[in-house]
């Protein structure tokens, strides 16, 4: 599909604004149909976001009138050991891991599935990987918590069976972050797998056949052809996971509450605590703004850094 950008031309000598009004009147039904979405977007997405920018410069308890405090909340964030020290460190570690695991493991799974010749077998394995999506994530988290239980959990029973010492896993500041990282093994996310698989399946068969005729083996085909051709999918997964992992505090909320000893805290969890536990909406807004700037910057870098010259264009 070729996208062209038309230069605005005022018809019948009308100014651009008059043209806009004219078009709105002419296609009023289309605008009316879209207005609901726009109103909801502005109310529930853009207004709160801009409101957070303003409130990040205030001392606001969510109830009374906010007091303007300038940069105080930002100073607090950047001098807080919990938020700026441990929090950002943990966030980057967890985000790096999240990006790695969501890019690599589903990619390998999809590459294997792509090579399965029997359609029935491929369908069976696809179903097997995708089925866990329908199980609520909370269930998985609770199961993992039980596996990690230090006194009666399965992992420690295995360690004892192997003649090793028990570990406190999630309950020790030394091992909690590692334990969080290990959760979800074998780390093949169903949605990521489907996205990659769709990318592989979109590769024209002629290209693959030509490569086979030229004598390219499986490994060569994967690294020289298939992998470069799914770079757009990798970029999508990376962006979604960078954004998701910076915003996410599900594990902290449900499993560790950021502890023990703030070993697993992340800024998003501090934001939630500041708002919902301490009633410090100004501080929470400031953390939100910092995260927004960070995510926005990384997304831009991501766009610029992960490029591909081999993209298909549909004509």
């Amino acid at each position, binding site marked *: 599909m070729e996208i062209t950008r038309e230069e605005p031309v005022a018809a019948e000598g009308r100014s651009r604004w008059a043209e806009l009004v004219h078009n709105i009147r002419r296609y009023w039904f289309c605008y009316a149909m879209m207005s609901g979405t726009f109103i909801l977007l502005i109310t529930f997405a853009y207004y709160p976001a801009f409101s957070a920018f303003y409130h990040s410069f205030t001392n606001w308890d969510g109830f009374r009138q906010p007091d303007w405090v300038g940069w105080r909340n930002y100073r607090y964030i950047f001098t807080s050991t919990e938020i700026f020290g441990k929090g950002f460190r943990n966030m980057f570690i967890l985000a790096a891991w999240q990006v790695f695991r969501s890019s690599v493991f589903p990619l390998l799974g999809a590459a294997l599935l792509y090579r399965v010749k029997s359609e029935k077998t491929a369908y069976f394995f696809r179903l097997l990987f995708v089925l866990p999506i329908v199980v609520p994530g909370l269930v998985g988290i609770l199961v993992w918590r039980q596996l990690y239980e230090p*006194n009666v959990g399965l992992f420690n029973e295995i360690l004892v069976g192997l003649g090793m010492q028990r570990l406190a896993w999630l309950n020790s500041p030394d091992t909690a972050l590692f334990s969080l990282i290990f959760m979800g093994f074998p780390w093949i996310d169903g949605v990521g797998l489907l996205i990659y698989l769709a990318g592989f399946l979109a590769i024209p068969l002629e290209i693959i056949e030509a490569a086979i005729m030229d004598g390219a083996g499986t490994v060569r085909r994967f690294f020289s052809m298939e992998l470069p051709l799914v770079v757009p999918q990798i970029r999508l997964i990376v962006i979604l996971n960078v954004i998701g992992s910076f915003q996410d505090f599900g594990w902290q909320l449900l499993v560790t509450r950021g502890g023990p000893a703030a070993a697993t805290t992340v800024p998003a969890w501090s934001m939630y605590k500041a708002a919902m536990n301490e009633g410090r909406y100004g501080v929470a807004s400031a953390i939100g703004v910092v995260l927004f700037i960070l995510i926005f910057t990384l997304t831009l870098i991501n766009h610029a850094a992960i490029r591909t010259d081999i993209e298909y264009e549909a004509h």
Partner: protein
Amino acid sequence: MSKFSMSRRDLLKVLGLTAVGAMAAACAPSATPTAAPKGEEPVATTEPAQEVAETYTILHWAQSAEPTDPNAELEPGEVRKVAYDQVADAYMADHPNVKIEWYRFPAGSNVVEWLMARMTAQDAPDIYWANTEDLWPHIPKGWALAFDPWAELPNPYVSGNQRWFDQFEEVAVISQTGPDGKLYGVNMDGAGVLTLYNTDAFEEAGITQEPRTWGEFRDTWAVLLEAGYIPYGADLSPETCCFPHWASAHIYNQLVWDTIYDWDHDGNMVITAKDLATSYQMGTFPDWDAYLQFAHLLKEMTPYFPLGYEGQLDYRQLWRQGRVVMYMEGNWAVSQLKNDPPPHGFSWLAFPVVTKDIWPAAPEKVTRIQGAWGAMQYHVPGYLAQTNPGKVDVVMDWLMWSSVPEHVGAICKETGLVPLTKDAEGMPELAPFYEPYDRAVPYQSWQSLSSSGLNAEYELWQQYLPSDMTDDAFLALAKDKLEAEVEKVLEVNPEWAVD
């Protein structure tokens, strides 16, 4: 159909205008509720609810006093609770214009976070439960209605009663006294905490004498450990009720026995968040020497805790399995223990008495958490007086009916709560909780400052107890954390700042 197109510049203009508009909207006065204006006190009426023509539905979160949901499937050993339903049915029969509905608290939610959301949205139940420590920092925001005008009225359902709040034990009343001296709830029952222990494990380990002092407990724990048990069930997670702050209440109160009421600036015998913030600013809270000694005593206990005590553990289940021998438990467990007894014998102990060889100023007396942290302490959202003033009188009338001693007794007998309503009788199995003690603790922990303070103190223990941190490092860390928590409280309550 002609195409509509927009130049990049126009698009930027529209986006810019939208941004400016949103910014301007953000600068507009907040649409969220503000605190009740001072000077506009609600006025109580003695008008009986049945004479009110309007129909009211009262949504009541009765915490563990609530009747069992008729649609709920019972756990093994669980008994369907009906007492409060019967109290409500009798009230509704007498007051056809009033309907009582039970609010089912979302399982697994955090009370403070739930309150924050409900108060912001102004959709809290008409009557809700909360420990007062969690309320005090938020009183200026109008989270709770002052009960004072109704507290002075006679309860029409109790013959001879001249003043409603005279029905309750003193501790029940003073515990509801907020930072401004007003009463922010009614408290019909209380809570007691003792040490629950496995008598079979004592017997198997050859322990014949019940320990009383700290030294005797320490010896007992060592014997139990030697016998292969986990002597003491505890963890440092804010999600598990409640070892660290109960330990603080029991131990720290013994160490500052003679000076603790120095922090009670308003003289109401309750240490509120405002008292602590004030004392901290004056340099009198906490007594750091005593606090360090408390830390040492806690550290002495850690070899007897289960593995992974730094995080969340289900040590109550480990006790039921016979692996953990003792842990601190509240009276509310009595009902469950009665209906679903563990496969071993059990009994109750008071918390260790600190002796003078450990702390020369120790009074060598039994202290106990025995106070107004029960399930039947109810509050009314402050905004109700503005949004539906007529309903407030009906709500108070229902609470007066609830607090009739026979009603409180019936509910307490069913649920294992300790009545703090005079002439109300609780469950006979609660006898250990009625035994004499020297003082009910007036201060628990940094929780008395704020819920965030509780988390900070738990985090302090998570850092200190499993580590080889020096005393100086511990004190420096504790001082930093406490200062940060006091600053947070003062940020939300700037009027508490001491000049």
